[in-house]
Every structure is written in structure tokens, then in C-alpha cells.
């Protein structure tokens, strides 16, 4: 937003003003259990924002690890997988066993993590299949492709697919075993700029509320015009986006007012908890060793 002109003594809160004159008749939405996972209702490749949140409350040794350990450990493991030649079968099986063991220790549903991480495969697959042709263009026809595959190009395809899948799985393992608050705190302590941590915090906090408003607007649209197509559909979606935008803007103003009322001076106060314990050191060592093992063999 362009900085709005500040008239004397009036920071201006049209959000509130308009709310009184327009929204005043609408009750605030009640959200008793909107955090329950509703993966089926929004057909979309991006996961429902809260689908994993309930999993983060499980109690397990992995959940108990410091968030920084998990982030760094996962990163090291992913680097090990990504920076090295495509895994040989034995290595891949060992890695899979390791990840399965971690998932079991974390008391998380393996099937769900596997299917969710497999979401990377379609995109990765399309590129992976073409990859053996390489940057020099090759003969880009079925003949060229077939000979590329037969000539060992399938290793490249395997490499891309396996790396993508393993890495996705590692990240999901971290995401499903770490509470949002701890994840954000860890990022802050890992020196991610404050602006980003604040953005990430607000996204995870308000996406549920906004998502629900979006759903009601969409339901209203669909109930009133179930057969909308093409341009008309897009125009309606545009209005929904605009409506939600204005409401979010006004909400932003109210949130800022609430923050300022409690003394906000520009930086979010930090309560840093958590110390690295022996379990954390052990985990990091294990991740590092695995990465090295993959790299060396």
C-alpha cells in the first residue's frame, strides 16, 4: 500500500468506520472447530493449511527434538541426497528404511506422508522423462528419447524422481513433527530476517480464518449460480477475491490496532524456549552420517 497521508491526529481506520456502516449487521463468524482437517472439500494440489497441524501434537521422541535440529538435520540429509549421483538400489532401500524408522518413531501415519510426498511426482516425472535428452537438445523425438532411455538415460530419470520424493518426504516429516510456534522460533534463531518470520507467522495464523471466509463466499456463489463457466465464472472469482481482499485489509488494520493497544513498537517480542539436548546432538550426528554415507558410496 502506498503510505496514506496522515491528517492531524488521525491515523485513519476506515476499516473500522466502514465496518460500522456496512458490516455492522453481520455477526462475526464462529469458528469452533475450523481447524479440523478437511482435505476432501477443496480439490487442490496444495494441501489444506491445517491438514498436518493435528499431527504436530502427537507425543514422540521426534516431536520432542528441538525444531532447529530437525530443520538442520533434514537439510543435511537432503543435501546429501541431492548433491550426489543417483542412488543405487541398495542405498535407496537403506534410506527408505531410515525414513520409515523415523516416521514410526515419530508415531506418524506413513501412508499419509508417502501419498502427500508423492505429489511431487507428476511435475518431477514430466521433466524426469525428458531429462535424458540433456541440454544439447538431442534428437527430440520418440526415437531419440527411446535410445536415450535405453542408453542409460533411465538412471537420470530415476535420479530425479527418487531425489524429489525423498527430499519431499524429509520435509514433510519435519513439518508433521514440529509445531508451528516452534518452527517459527527455530527460523528466527537460525537468523531468518524478522520480516519473514512475521509474515510466516501471520500466514499460518490467518490462512484458516481467511480460507473459511473464502469457502463461504464460494459456497454462496455456487449456490446462487451453479452453472457458471468461462468469463462469468472468472469475473465472479475476481469479485470474491476483491471482497476478501477488502475484508482482509480491514482486518489487518484491526489487528494492528490490537497490537498497538498492547504496546507494539515495531518488533514482535520473542520468547525463545528450547535448548539443545543430547537427543538433538545425536539426531544431527545421525543425519550427518547418513548424508556422508550416501555421498561416499
Amino acid at each position, binding site marked *: 500500500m502506498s503510505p496514506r497521508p496522515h*491528517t492531524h491526529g488521525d491515523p485513519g*481506520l476506515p476499516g473500522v468506520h466502514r465496518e460500522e456502516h456496512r458490516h455492522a449487521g453481520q455477526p462475526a463468524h*464462529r469458528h469452533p472447530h475450523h*481447524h479440523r482437517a478437511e482435505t476432501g472439500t477443496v480439490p487442490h494440489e496444495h494441501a489444506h493449511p491445517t491438514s498436518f497441524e493435528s499431527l504436530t501434537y502427537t507425543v514422540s521422541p521426534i516431536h520432542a527434538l528441538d525444531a532447529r535440529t530437525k530443520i538442520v538435520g533434514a537439510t543435511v540429509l537432503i543435501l546429501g541426497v541431492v548433491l550426489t549421483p543417483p542412488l543405487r538400489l541398495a542405498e535407496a532401500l537403506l534410506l527408505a528404511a531410515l525414513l520409515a524408522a523415523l516416521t514410526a518413531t515419530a508415531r506418524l501415519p506413513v501412508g499419509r506422508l508417502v501419498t502427500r510426498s508423492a505429489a511431487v511426482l507428476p511435475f518431477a516425472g514430466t521433466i524426469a522423462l525428458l531429462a535424458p535428452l540433456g541440454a544439447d537438445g538431442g534428437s527430440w523425438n520418440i526415437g531419440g528419447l527411446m535410445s536415450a532411455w535405453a542408453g542409460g538415460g533411465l538412471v537420470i530419470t530415476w535420479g530425479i524422481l527418487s531425489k524429489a520424493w525423498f527430499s519431499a518426504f524429509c520435509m514433510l516429516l519435519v513439518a508433521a513433527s514440529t509445531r508451528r510456534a516452534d518452527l517459527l522460533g527455530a527460523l528466527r534463531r537460525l537468523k531468518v530476517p524478522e520480516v519473514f518470520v512475521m509474515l510466516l507467522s501471520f500466514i499460518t495464523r490467518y490462512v484458516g480464518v481467511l480460507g473459511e471466509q473464502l469457502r463461504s463466499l464460494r459456497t454462496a456463489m455456487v449456490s446462487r449460480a451453479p452453472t457458471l463457466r468461462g468469463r462469468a465464472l472468472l469475473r465472479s472469482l475476481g469479485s470474491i477475491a476483491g471482497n476478501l481482499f477488502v475484508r482482509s485489509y480491514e482486518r489487518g488494520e484491526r*489487528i494492528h*490496532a490490537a497490537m498497538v493497544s498492547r504496546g507494539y513498537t515495531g518488533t514482535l*517480542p520473542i520468547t525463545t524456549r528450547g535448548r539443545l539436548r543430547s537427543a538433538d546432538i545425536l539426531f544431527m550426528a545421525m543425519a550427518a552420517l547418513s548424508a556422508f554415507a550416501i555421498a561416499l558410496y
Partner: protein
Amino acid sequence: MEARNRHGLIELHGVTHRYPDGTEALRGIDLTVAEGRSLALLGPNGAGKSTLLLHLNGILRPTTGSVRVDGAEVTSATVRDVRRRVGLVFQDPDDQLFMTTLYEDVAFGPLNGGATPDEVDRLVHTALHEVGLADAASRPGHHLSFGQRKRAALATVLVMEPRVLVLDEPTANLDPRSRRQMVALLASLGTTALVATHDMDVAWELCTDAAVIDDGTIVAAGPKERILTDAALLEAHGLEMPWAVRTGAADAPATIAP
């Protein structure tokens, strides 16, 4: 308003507020909230209640007129102090629970005020205990039910130990049980308060005084016994008599003020 020799805890004199687009939200408001009293601010939607409330802790400044809190005028210099003394609880709890856990939300005020981690811990647990949410500290605020979130939002303000509590529609959209819980909780606080509401029964139950605002001006103010029994006045401004008054039920046992 009953005359008081000492100054009111909150005083508005001739406050007008004009928005940048020219709309006049407040036209010459004179209002006093005396210490030890609780004032119900009543009025139809669009009357200016929320705008008025935002003047009480300096978020909005009057176009003309003055706002005084505990004897001091609200200016850029005094505003930080004012915000510690005036605890403003907004209508939508989602706007006030913006951190990742309830603990962090309640700790926000004290931390910004420079309290040490130990003090913060003590204050947070006291406040959560006061509103009955002691065991929800490590959960995200938005995982609570609506009624719990209203109480959580209250805790984020109570933790700062304000001199006067300002509440915007504390019982709006609450189911009957949550509403009773909230009313009981507020009644137990024993603090000077200003409650903006259209819930006439809450006004009658919790407050000692009442003021009616319509179209940006205060049309009547005084003890609740006088204001909330005046059927003609109430109807003229889109309000109704409290149920207790209409049926002649006994007075509520406790108000929010001590």
C-alpha cells in the same frame, strides 16, 4: 451524569471525529466514566460506538475536542502510558489473538512493556487462570472455541492490569452458556469499565451507568435505573428495555464495577 468532584477516569469533552472522506463519525461527544463505575454505551449500529472506543487509547485522535485519561490528555507523548491504563478489548477475538500460541498472545503486552521473562510468566499464568484458560497456554489461540477465544482476548488485556477496561460487544455471538460464563467472569473483575453493547440485558446486569449514542452524539447519560427504564428514549434510538426491567425481575447480584 452524577457530578463528581474528582475527575473521571475517562473524560471526553466536545470530541468530534471526521474521517478523511469527510464523514462525521462523532459530533461533539461529552462523556465521563467515573472511577469505580461501569458505563454501558448503547446505540444502534453505525452510531459511532466503535469509533468512540478507539479514541480512548489514542488509536484515533479527535478532530476537535479532547480526551483525558486519568487526568492526562491523550497525546503522542502520553499515549504509551494511556495504553497501559486503558485495556481495550475488541469485538473480534481473532483480531487480538495473532501470535502462534495463547501464551505468546497474553505475554505480548507485558513483553512490550519490558517485563522480565519471569515476571511475564507469572503475569501470563495469573491472567489465564483468571479467565479459566490456564491449561490452554501452549495451544494456538485459534484452536479454541469462540467463547474461549473471547475470554482469551480478555486475558490478553487483563494481563496488563489496566485501570479501566473498555469492552466492545463482549457478549456478541456467544451461545447462552458462553454468554453466562462471560458475564460471570466480567462481574467478578471489580474494575472501572466502559462496555459498548447492544445487549441490553448485559448492560443492565453489569453496569452502574448508561449512555445512549446515536448518529455521533450522546443523547442521554446517567444511572442505569434512569436510562434503561425509559422506554420512549430507548425505542427512539433503536433500543429496547432490558428483559429484567420489562418483567420487573430482581436486580442482578453484581456489576462489573467493584
